[in-house]
């Protein structure tokens, strides 16, 4: 599978412009439910366990107002990235103490090899650019968010 095909990884239904819950765990469940509602998760509990286990290992609050919860799990059968954003920001235990406003959840099949790290690093590299963060914070439609993400992973 081509992991750089954004319409497959992040179809519009995996993008939310609604306000997620204000807690880290609540926000992770919110992102997960986007994927569940899109029919991409076979086992919600298993996926949630994998995501929370990863957070326990080390936070995915990477700073710059970004949280990227991620996991490899057989609860999904294809690479899946969900997006949401928080107006006030969420405490994601980031080292720079900045609340996370841009949230990405990456789920890839357990057999997906290095797919999740590839997506994670491509996303992280692009998010180091302030203009990319600004575009995502200001996007007024799901389509705009998807377009920005498409540039990111190309």
């Amino acid at each position: 599978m081509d992991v750089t095909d954004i319409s497959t990884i992040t179809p519009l239904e995996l993008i939310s412009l609604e306000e997620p819950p204000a807690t880290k765990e609540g926000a992770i469940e919110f992102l997960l439910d986007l994927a569940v509602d899109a029919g991409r998760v076979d086992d919600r509990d298993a996926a949630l366990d994998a995501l929370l286990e990863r957070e326990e290992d080390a936070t995915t609050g990477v700073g710059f107002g970004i949280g990227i919860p991620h996991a490899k799990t057989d609860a999904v059968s294809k690479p899946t990235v969900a997006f949401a954003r928080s107006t006030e920001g969420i405490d994601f235990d980031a080292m720079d103490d900045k609340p996370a406003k841009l949230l990405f959840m990456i789920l890839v099949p357990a057999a997906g090899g290095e797919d999740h790290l590839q997506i994670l690093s491509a996303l992280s590299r692009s998010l180091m650019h302030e203009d990319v963060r600004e575009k995502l914070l200001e996007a007024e439609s799901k389509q705009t968010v998807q377009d920005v993400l498409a540039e990111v992973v190309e």
Partner: protein
Amino acid sequence: MERTVTVVPEDGLHARPASLFVETANEFDADVQLGRADEDDLVPAASMLAVTGLGVGHDESVRLVAEGDDAEAALDALEDILSTPEAKQ
């Protein structure tokens, strides 16, 4: 000063080792930069986002460049982290 180090943890510079690496880079009075050994680009070692963006895997080599009063101590500590297999539970 600089040195090249091979990344030993199984998952590469990711999750706990990455977190520990960035925390450690922040502890010293030194400006530390990091890049893939085969590339010229360097990113700040004190930024989790930047380190995650490098996506360095197990057995890959990275170049550490440090400047400042604690440069050598910082490199020693960071090399130590990169050279330590992650404890499995």
